[in-house]
């Protein structure tokens, strides 16, 4: 299994598209950090106008953590595209290039191959999140310095800098879980398709589509929303809620876990019985 995973990782990291993902993360992080460097005061001023009328803010509001938090908000819209870019290609790419004929005629179990590919894709997804985390917090420290984190949910939460790191660690870990769900979805679509464009676009269309439908049709879908995986992609925010955040997190993790197992289970079953015709 380790051998299969290392081969799949080697293949992933030999493809230019893999570096598009890391390039995009770097561009997004740089754009946001420099954007905040030049426009951050105005932005914070606007958002916290009411508080600033009543309070004097003493300390550094725009700091590495605030910037990292803002960047985290892009996680669920940009990073899924980058995850799908690679994970959507894992099976469909081999089908498209005809290389399944090479590897599946070797003494290799299809189930192991699917698992190895998924794990390799997952490692790539984890690296995307890790690069984003290190770059946003690291560059943030250089550009903005440390400080306490102000997070506006339905209230204003001000977290002491000592109370922030574990929340970020949790949020990034949850982000990895969300990206695992995205990876599992695009991997499933990848098993169904014979070229990688379909799974990549399909994944994004499904995520955005379900989100829009579930948002617009809250009353229509009602309780179904509680069981849609898209409802839980941004639940990393719960790490920055002070009241019932952590309680809700259990449900979010459970739902995502069920989807991951479901998507991956279907992919393994489908690929196991699939005829390789390409």
């Amino acid at each position, binding site marked *: 299994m380790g051998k299969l995973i290392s081969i799949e990782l080697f293949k992933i990291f030999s493809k230019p598209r893999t570096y598009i993902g890391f390039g995009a993360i770097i561009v997004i992080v740089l754009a946001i950090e420099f954007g905040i460097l030049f426009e951050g005061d105005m932005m914070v001023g606007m958002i916290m106008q009411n508080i600033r009328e009543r*309070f004097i803010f003493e300390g550094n509001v725009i700091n590495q953590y605030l910037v990292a938090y803002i960047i985290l908000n892009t996680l669920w819209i940009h990073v899924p595209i980058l995850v799908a870019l690679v994970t959507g290609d894992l099976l469909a790419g081999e089908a498209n290039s005809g290389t399944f004929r090479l590897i599946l005629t070797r003494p290799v179990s299809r189930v192991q191959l699917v698992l190895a590919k998924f794990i390799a894709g997952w490692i790539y997804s984890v690296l995307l999140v890790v690069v984003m985390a290190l770059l946003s917090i690291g560059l943030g420290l250089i550009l903005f310095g440390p400080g306490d984190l*102000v997070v506006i949910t339905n209230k204003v939460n001000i977290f002491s800098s000592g109370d922030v790191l574990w929340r970020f660690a949790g949020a990034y870990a949850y982000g990895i879980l969300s990206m695992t769900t995205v990876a599992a979805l695009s991997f499933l679509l990848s098993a169904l398709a014979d070229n990688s464009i379909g799974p990549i676009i399909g994944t994004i269309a499904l995520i955005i589509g379900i989100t829009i439908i579930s948002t617009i049709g809250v009353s229509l879908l009602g309780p179904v929303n509680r069981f849609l995986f898209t409802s839980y992609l941004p639940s990393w925010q719960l790490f920055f809620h002070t009241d019932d955040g952590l309680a809700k997190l259990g449900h979010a993790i459970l739902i995502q876990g069920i989807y991951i197992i479901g998507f991956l289970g279907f992919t393994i079953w489908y690929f196991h019985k699939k005829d390789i015709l390409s």
Partner: protein
Amino acid sequence: MKALKILLITLICSSVGLTLQAQDAESLLKAVVTGMDKILRFEADALIKVDVDFIDIKDRKIKIKFESPDHFTFDAEGLALLPKQGMQMDYLKLLKAKYTAIDVGEEVIRTRKSRIIKVIPESEDSEVILAQLWIDPELNRIMRMKTFTRKSGSYLIDFEYNTNFRPLPDLLTVDFEISNMAFPAKAMNDLMSKGIQKPDSLPKKARVVVQYSNYKIVNK
């Protein structure tokens, strides 16, 4: 005629009384200012507790430095929210400008008999439109203050002292009202966070308690 005479005397007496009262009020306020003005600079530690329904912040320790006449620096561990009124001796600025003062009575504040004085600033630029001060006439210290400001609503500030010699409070309690934020649409985040209820915009009670310690005062 007799009735007219009585009325006239009463009017004169009362106006003389008012003037006398105003003089008392002003001198009392001046005494407060004089007491404060003795301070050349001071340093203190403070623990700030913010109690606002929609603001979640742990108690913050800050260091306060004051240089006469009105220069304050705050050194916070992380981010601190300080009340706009009360912590920067804003009352000194008010009481050093031109104002009209009226003594409107007496009230016992924490066992201390205090004079209630209304202060109306004469300057049109003044942030404070009207202030009411409860002053301990024996120790010439402000016990309580209520201010109505132009931009940031009204404040009720309680000054508590542990000693009889220091004009600076050991505990400051600032009460005011604040509306929840007009949250900007946080794009898809909020769309996704269905569990989060939108905040109402009615003003909420806010309280900030400042606990001072380790005063180091240098007098002039």
